[in-house]
C-alpha cells in the first residue's frame, strides 16, 4: 500500500484513544432494557453498542429440529445497516453466519440445555454501533441476557479481543486497531471453569506473541466477568428489609 499507515501507538506507548496496551475500554451494562424479551442486555464497550434479547425456552419450529434430550440454541449475530461507516446490507453476510456459529459454540457450554428438552432458546445479538471486538462484546452481552432471562447457567462467559498494533500486543481492540493492526484474536473465557470457549485469530503473530495474547485476553475477560457479576448482583440481590417484606 502506498498510503502512510496510521500511528497506532504514540511515543509514550499510549493508543489512539489514550489507553495503555492492557487497558479495557469503559464498559456500561444495562440489564432488562427490553420489556418484551424474556431477558435482555444493552452493552456498551467504548463506542461499541450492542443489544441482546433472549427468548425461551419455548416450543421449537420447525418441530423436526428439536432434540429429545436438550434445548437447542438459536443464535443470530447481526449488524445493523447503520452500525458501520458505509451502510451494511441488512441481509446476513458470510461473516455474520460464521460469527453466529462461533458465538453459539461459545455459549453452548454454559447453558444447562439438558433441563429443557425439546425446546429452543433464542438469542438475538444486534450490533447497533460497531467499533472493534463486536463478536466477543456480543457474546459477553448474550451471557448477561441469558442470566437476565433466568435460564440456568453453569457460569458466565466473558469475551475480549487482543491484537497487535505497531508491533505491540494490545487488549480490547478498537475499530482502527482492528482494521490497521497486524492481528486480531478474539477469545471467550469461562472463569469458573477455567475454559476457553471461543478462540479465533487472523493476522500474523509469532508463537510468543500468541502466548502473551492468550494470557492478556484471559486477564481482560476476568475483569469483564467481574463487571458482569456486579451488574447481575445489583439488579437481582434484594436489600435485606425488602426481602423480609416479601416473605411476610
Amino acid at each position: 500500500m502506498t498510503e502512510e499507515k496510521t500511528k497506532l501507538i504514540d511515543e509514550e506507548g499510549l493508543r489512539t484513544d489514550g489507553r495503555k496496551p492492557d487497558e479495557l475500554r469503559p464498559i456500561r451494562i444495562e440489564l432488562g432494557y427490553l420489556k418484551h424479551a424474556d431477558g435482555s442486555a444493552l452493552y456498551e464497550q467504548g463506542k461499541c453498542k450492542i443489544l441482546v434479547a433472549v427468548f425461551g425456552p419455548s416450543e421449537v419450529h420447525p418441530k423436526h429440529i428439536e432434540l429429545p434430550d436438550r434445548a437447542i440454541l438459536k443464535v443470530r449475530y447481526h449488524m445493523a445497516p447503520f452500525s458501520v461507516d458505509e451502510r451494511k446490507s441488512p441481509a446476513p453476510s458470510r461473516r455474520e453466519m460464521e460469527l453466529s456459529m462461533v458465538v453459539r459454540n461459545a455459549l453452548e457450554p454454559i447453558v444447562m440445555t439438558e433441563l429443557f428438552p425439546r425446546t429452543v432458546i433464542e438469542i438475538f445479538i444486534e450490533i447497533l454501533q460497531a467499533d472493534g471486538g463486536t463478536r466477543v462484546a456480543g457474546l459477553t452481552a448474550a451471557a448477561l441476557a441469558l442470566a437476565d432471562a433466568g435460564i440456568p447457567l453453569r457460569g458466565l462467559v466473558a469475551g475480549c479481543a487482543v491484537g497487535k498494533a505497531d508491533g505491540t500486543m494490545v487488549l480490547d481492540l478498537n475499530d482502527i486497531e482492528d482494521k490497521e493492526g497486524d492481528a486480531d484474536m478474539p477469545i471467550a473465557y469461562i472463569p469458573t471453569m477455567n475454559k476457553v470457549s471461543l478462540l479465533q485469530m487472523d493476522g500474523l503473530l509469532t508463537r510468543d506473541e500468541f502466548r502473551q495474547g492468550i494470557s492478556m485476553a484471559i486477564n481482560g475477560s476476568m475483569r469483564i466477568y467481574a463487571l458482569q457479576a456486579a451488574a447481575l448482583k445489583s439488579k437481582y440481590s434484594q436489600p435485606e428489609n425488602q426481602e423480609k417484606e416479601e416473605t411476610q
Partner: protein
Amino acid sequence: MSVTRDRPVISRVLHQELMDLLARDKRMDGRALHEFRKIEVETGMLKKAEGSALVSVGGTKVLVGIKVDLGSPFPDTPNQGVLTVNAELLPLASPTFEAGPPDERSIALARYVDRSIRESKAIDLEALALQPGKIVQVLYIDVYVLDYNGNMTDTAVLAAVKALENTNLKKYTLEGDTPTFNGELAPLALKDYPVSTTFGIIGEKFFLDPDLEEEHAAEGFMSYTYTQGGNLCAVMKNEQGYLTPSQILDMLDVGWEKAQEIGRSMNWRKD
C-alpha cells in the same frame, strides 16, 4: 442464524470407547496421538483451471481448482488483486452434507482457508494489479470436499496451497488502457506456504488429524495455521467444546512440530 445440530447417536458409544483408548494414549486406527494419516498429493489434473490439486489425508479427499479473471479492485485496496475463497461441502462427500447454498460449516471452512492464505502473505496481491485502481486479476480458490472422513480443514488448506503452487497466470501487456493477453503464461510465485494442523479434543486429551469417528465423538477442535517461518497466521476453535489455556499452548507447540514435518515432506523447507 446458527442452530444447534444433532450429533450422531453412535457418538455416545464411540465416545466411551475413545475415552478408554485415549486414557492409554491410543487411537482406534492404531495411530499415535500426534500422528497424521497418510497424505497424498496430485496436482495439475484439471486442464481448464489455472491451477489444481487433489489432496487426500487418510480417507478425506479435497479438490481445489483455481480460476483467474479480470475485474475491478476493492475500493479500499485499489493497488491489490482480489482473492476469493469458496468452499463446497458436496452431497457426494457425506450423508450429512446437503445441496444448496453454503451453510455455516462451509462458510467457516472457506473463511479459514482464506485467512490462512491471505494473512500468511503467501500471494503478492499487488503483483496482481494490472492497472492499479482499475483492472486487477481476481483469483478464485474453489474448495471441493469430495470425500469427508474427518479433518477437512487441514486437507483443504494443503490442497489450496498446492493448487496455488501449481497455478499459471496469463501475462498481460497494457495496450493503451486495456490489458491484453500476450500469449505467455507464468507460474504464480508464492511467498510462503502456510500449513494448518487440527486437533480434536476429548476431555483432557487432544489428538492430531481427527478421522470421522473421532470427529463424531470429539467435543471440540482447534486449528492452527503456521507460516514456514513459524508464525501463526490463522487460529480457530470449532464446535461446542472448550479447552483450558494450557491445552491451547500445548497444542501450539505440537502443531508447529507437525507443520514443519509437512513442510519438509512437501519440499517447502530444507531443514
